[in-house]
Every structure is written in C-alpha cells, then in structure tokens.
C-alpha cells in the first residue's frame, strides 16, 4: 500500500524535479505555502521512480538534469500508461531556440523559462491543473482526450 494512496488527497500533489537544491526547495516551499502537496526529485531517474510511486497530479520538470535529462524522463513518463496522464511543466534556463520545441516533442504540456518567479510558476501550475480537470470532466462525459490529439502533433 503506497504512501500516496494512504493519505487523503485534499491538496494536489506537485512533483518538483530540479537538481539545484536551492531552487528546488524554494519552489517546494512556495508551492506548499500556496496550498500544494510537494514531492521532490533531484534527477531524471528519481523523477520517474517518484512519479510511478506517487502518481502526482502534476510534474514540474527541469530539463537540464544529471544522470537522465528532463526530455528523456518526460518521454518515459509519457510512454508509461500509469503516468502518461500526468501533466508535465518543463522548466528551462536555456531560452535558446529549439528548447521549447524539444520540450513539446518530448511530451511536456507546458513550459516556463527560468528565471521564473514563484508567483508565475504557481499561476502556470494552477492553470494547467484546471485545464486538466476540465479535460477529465470531458473524458467522463464521453468527450475526447486532448492527449490523443497532442500525441499526434
């Protein structure tokens, strides 16, 4: 019986994947302050393990990670039936062209560029969760999953 399943899901769980501890803890602190449950991961492999184990409501994924980078981790999560429904927000410090593109191709649902103030990040996460919840309602009503069309792009 998992830890996640044991606890009552009163608040959405955000998995923050970031190798830079200061930033990770800052986002975690602010997210908790903003009313989210937070789990943390320091690299891609850990991120996959945590995601499979905790099934978070959303993943905040830094793309530049040791051991396994964010793109690869995203691809794996999106190819795993257990985790593929979880929205992923990519965090990138490289504002160079192609990163946004690469992140979308890997399966990210949104991305924000660092530096990203905690306010902006929380706003983006809230937006995405609401969108996701709406989609889930549609799915229940027999509507089509937006992921199906996303996969194709």
């Amino acid at each position: 019986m998992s830890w996640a399943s044991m606890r009552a899901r009163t608040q959405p769980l955000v998995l923050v994947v970031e190798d830079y501890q200061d930033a990770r803890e800052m986002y975690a602190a602010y997210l908790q302050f903003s009313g989210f449950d937070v789990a943390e991961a320091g690299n891609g492999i850990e991120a996959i393990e945590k995601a499979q184990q905790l099934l978070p409501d959303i993943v905040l994924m830094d793309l530049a990670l040791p051991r396994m980078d964010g793109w690869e981790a995203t691809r794996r999560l999106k190819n795993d039936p257990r985790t593929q429904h979880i929205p992923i927000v990519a965090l990138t410090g490289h504002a160079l062209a192609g990163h946004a593109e690469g992140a979308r191709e890997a399966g990210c649902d949104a991305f924000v560029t660092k530096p990203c103030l905690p306010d902006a990040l929380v706003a983006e996460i809230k937006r995405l969760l609401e969108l996701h919840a709406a989609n889930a309602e549609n799915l229940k009503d027999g509507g089509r999953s937006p992921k199906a069309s996303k996969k194709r792009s």
Partner: protein
Amino acid sequence: MSRATAPVAPIQVIDSEAKLAFVEFLLTSIDIQESARRAIDWLVAHAPVTEAAVLVSEGLSNEMLLVAEHGVSSGAIMDFSLYRDDTAHPLIQALHSPVPVYVETVAAHHRVPIEARPFHVIPLRAEASEPGYGLVVVAGVGPHLDTETLWLGRTLGKQVSRLMGRQLLAETRFGQERMLLYSIINAVTDPILLTDTEGKLIIANSHAEKLFAAPEEASEGWRRAAALNNMLFSAALSTSAVGMTELARRELLLVDPLEGSDLLFELLSSRAKDERQGTYVVSILRNVTDLARAKEEIEESYRTLRIAQAEVRDERHRLDLIIDSVADPILVTDQEGDIVLMNTPAERLFNAPGVDDQGTLRRVRANGANLTSFVSNVLTRSGEQRYRGEIQLADPLTGRPLPVEAVAGTILSEQGELMWVVTILHDLTEAIEKAKLFEQLKQASVELERKVQEATSELAEQNELLRRQHIALEQASALKSQFLANMSHEFRTPLNAILGYTHMLLNNVTGQVTEPQRKSLTRIDSNSRHLLALINDILDITRIEAGRMPLNATAFGVDELFDEVQAELEPIIKKSSLVVTTRMRGAVPTVRSDRQKVKQIVLNLLSNALKFTPAGSVTLSASYDARQKIVAIAVKDTGVGIPPEDQSKVFEDFRQLDSSPARGYGGTGLGLSICRRLSHILGGTIDLESTPGKGSVFTLRLPARPARKR
C-alpha cells in the same frame, strides 16, 4: 650504133654482128617508117646497093606510101604515087609475087621511085600466103639478088607484117582510148574546155557543160547564166590570147547557173597546135571559191598570229620587268648547272662585272659554288618538282653573311627531260632575326606563365588558409555562442534562486517582514531584475552577432500588436500620468515578419518613451508606403528629447543618457542597440528625430513582406 661498122673487118663476122644489132633494133621499134629507114641504111652498108626505096601501104589501103629511100634523085620521088588498084604497074604486080621480081625495063607511064635500071622488087610479107604490105625496090646488085639483100627483105617483111598487125589493133584500141579519154575528162571535177582561139567551144567535159551550155529544157535564168558565162570566158580568153603560147593563169568570176551564186575560178589555158586542125586552146577552170575563202581565213589567222606574237613579245618584256623587279634573286640554270638567266638582284650576288676587289670576287665565286652545289642536289633528285633548302651566301660588297632560303623548281621538256632549274632565293636574315625574337618572346611567355602559376598556387594556398581560418572562426564563434548560452544558464540559476527567495520573503511566506526589511528586500529584488535584464540583453546581442537569431515569419496586424504591447506595459502606463494613444494612418496591411522581434522592438521603444517622458503624451502610429511596400511604426513622445550631438550615440551599446536603474523597468543601455540590430535582421531600419525639451520620434521601417534572400 650499128652504123659504126668497120668495112675492113671479115664480112662473115661483120654480117652476123650487124644482123644481130639490126634485128635487136627492129624488135624495139614500133614504127614502120623508122624500121624502113634503118633497113635501107643497113642495106647500103652491107650490100652493093646504089639506089633503094621502101613503099608501104597503110594497112591494106589503096595508097602505097614512100617511107624510106637511098640514092634516089628528088625528081624521082617528087609527087610520086602508087595505088594497089594500078594492077598493070610492075611494082603492084611484084607486090603479089611470091618471090622477088627482077625488072629490067619499065614502061614510061609507070613511075618508079628509083631511076636506075634494072632493079629488084622484093615484096614485104611474113608468109608467102600473105598479101604484100609493101615493097623494097633495090638497084645495083646485079641480076641475082645477093643473100644479104634477101635476108633483109625477109626480115623487113616480117617486121612490116608485125607492125601492120599492131596498127590494126591500135586502130580498134584508138576508139576505146578515145572513150576512156572522154570519161577521164568527165571524171575530172574541174571544168575542161577545148576551144578555138576565139573562145568557140569545141569539146567540153560535163562540168564545163554545166557552166556553159544550157539544155533545151533549162530555165530562163540558167540559159542567161550560161550565156553570161560564155561571154565572160571569151573575154578572159581573148585578153590573154595574144602571144599566149605557154600556160597562162588568171582569175575568172562566173555564175553558178543553178544556184545563182558567184563562183571564182582560176583559169588555166594553154595553146595547142595541131597540123591538121590548127591552133586551139585548152582551158581548165579550177574552182577557187573555197580557196579564196580559205585564203581569207589564212590571212585572218596570220593577222591573229602576228597580234599574238606581238602580245607574246610584250608579255615577255613585261615578264622580264617583273622578274627584275622582284626583290628576291631569281636564277635559271640549265641541266649542266650553268646559269642561263638571272634577274638584277641575283646578278648582285653572283656577278661582279668590272670589280677588281679580290674580296668581292672571292665572295662572288663562293656564292656561285654554293648555288651550284644546291642546284646539283636538285638535279640528282629527279622526280621531285620542288626542292627547298638553305644556302649560306655572303653580300659580295660588304661580306655580310646572307643566309637565304632557296626554292627550286624544275622545268621539264615535253619528253620529260629536265630542261632548266628555276631557283628563287629568299633572304632569311630577317626571318632568323624574327625567329630569335619569337624564341625570346616564347621564353618570356613561359616565364610569365610560370610566375602566374606561382602566384595562382600562392593565392590558392592563401585561399585555403583563409578557408581554414574561416572554419576555425566559425567554430570559435559557435563555441562562443555555446559558452554564452551556458553562461547565461549558469548566471540565471542562482539569480533565479535570489529572485525567488526575495519574492517569497516579500510575500511573507516565512512570516511577516518588517518595513525596513521590506525596503532592503525590494532593493535586492530590483537589482537582481536589472542583472537579469543585462544578462538577457547581452545574450540577445551575442545571438544576433553570431547570426543565431532565428527568424520566424508570420502574418500579423500592427494594430493588434499595438494593443498587446500597450497591455503588457499597462502597469507602467498606469503608474505614469501620460496619455498613450495608438493611431493607424491610412490603410496598413498585415505585415509578414517575425512578430516576436517586432513586438520586442515596439515594446522597447514604447518603454523608453514612457521612461523618458515626465509629462505629456506618447503616440504609437503606423503607416504604409504602398510604393515601396514599407510599413512605418512611429513612437512619438513629448519627453526630454535628445540633443543632436547625442542622437547617433543612443543606438550604441551601453548608451543611456540617464542610466539610473532606479527608474522603473530595466534600462540596461542595450535596448536601442538591440532594437537597431533586430530591425536590421528583419530588413528594416530605425530612425530618430528629436528636439531636446520637446520630445522624440523613433520610427521603425519594415518591409511588409520579408525579402526573398531571407
């Protein structure tokens, strides 16, 4: 001849020799009279004959003619006549006697051609049965005929008989010959006429008759032509008849009776005399009409020939002049190698008349020897029409070496024998000089080519070096860009944390902060933001300069863009007391460009305007130049303005007239520099018009559509 017999010789010998000679003569003779005379001569010489005569009838005709006589008086034979039908005459009686008759007396009314009495009459016949053709009357031999006379009588009788037979034959033959003669005359193509001296026609051949005689049925014209021809002929004959004893030649123009055309004849007439018929004229007309024409032609030919000869003479003269005027020496040598002809230039080389100078003479001889050896080469090479060679000659006067090219041609006779060798010499001095110069030129050219090649390879080397440097530079540039990209990431990560934590503190995440703490945190926050802006701007400039700013052209409306920019800067606008308006001047089409870059520029220009305008208004306007297809976006403010001397500086890096970062948003001093760079990569420009104290207008001009090369 046989007359020359010697009387002293023994008679027997003489007889047989004389008889043989006489018989030989008779065999060759065909004339009775001649035979008779000879017989009398022989008789007188060999028999004791005093008088003798021979009488013969022509054939067996009545009249007996005296054909030969000896020792007879003229009275005895004067008007002598004897006829066969005078049968009472002792001579006629003797004619029929088989043997000679001895007559002692003769009646006075019978005339005998000899006067002596008695005499013997020997009938002349070959056989006893034959009638006598004639008689030999002999006197002085006594009552008995001696053997010589008898032999002679028999021999002459045989001769007369033989000749009589021939005469009969001849008479019949005469008729035939006459016919033959006529046909011969007729066969002659020339007209032949026999006339009397007056021109009266006696005999004419058929060709003559055509001219001179018109038949009964002939036309009037023909008859008149014939009459005219007769007249002309008579006139011609009469003018030449006098004293004409020999062949006379003259021209005679007659008329062709059938054709009516003129005919020119040569008239040859000769006078012939006949005892019985008198004098007559034989005329032969030779048609020379064609001859005359031929003569004219010959004369014409001759004239042409003379003209041609004159021309040939002129030609030869000209040829001589030409040959002499040729600057190259020309020589003609015979098959022995001797010079038979040369022109003036050749003479200068091979002939030095009247020169004593030994050197000159020696050189002339040397030249001659060189030429001779060349020509002998030509002569030994039979079969080749042309021969080319070089000869080393020398100028006879100066001794200057004279290399020449000799070209020889052989002239052959019609039989193919070599007649002459014509040699033309051509001075090679200049050619050799030219060849030398050409060689030098060639070397220079080779040298030049070598240098060009060297230069080319050097250039290629340098090109290669440049290419490598270029690659190295590109690699360096790529490394620099990579480095800057990495650096910006590395800068931003800690900055991210600083900004984040400051933000958290200011938002009381870790508990309520005091007012002085808030003031300090705000300072940290604004400086961090400034640092972040600087990092972002430097990164932008680096990317533009490295050519790594990708363009993403899309179509967008300028008015929407204005709204968006305005919305983005809404907090700042609100904070200021400025009136911001947007205006579209005329119809502005949608622009196809990199929307984000254009927005960045407009954002920058507007934020600048807001920053530097303490009071008044800021206007965003857009217009379209349809001719040049350029969209102009102007940001006009009523701010501090920029002095003219600083106007060009505002676009430089880190130029901000008032660089206090405390003035609200960013302000790195790189904004306009980036704007200008961006406008350039979009194919546009940014201009500035400003009056200090009154305000500034920044105008961005962009092509409505991206240029093709982008």
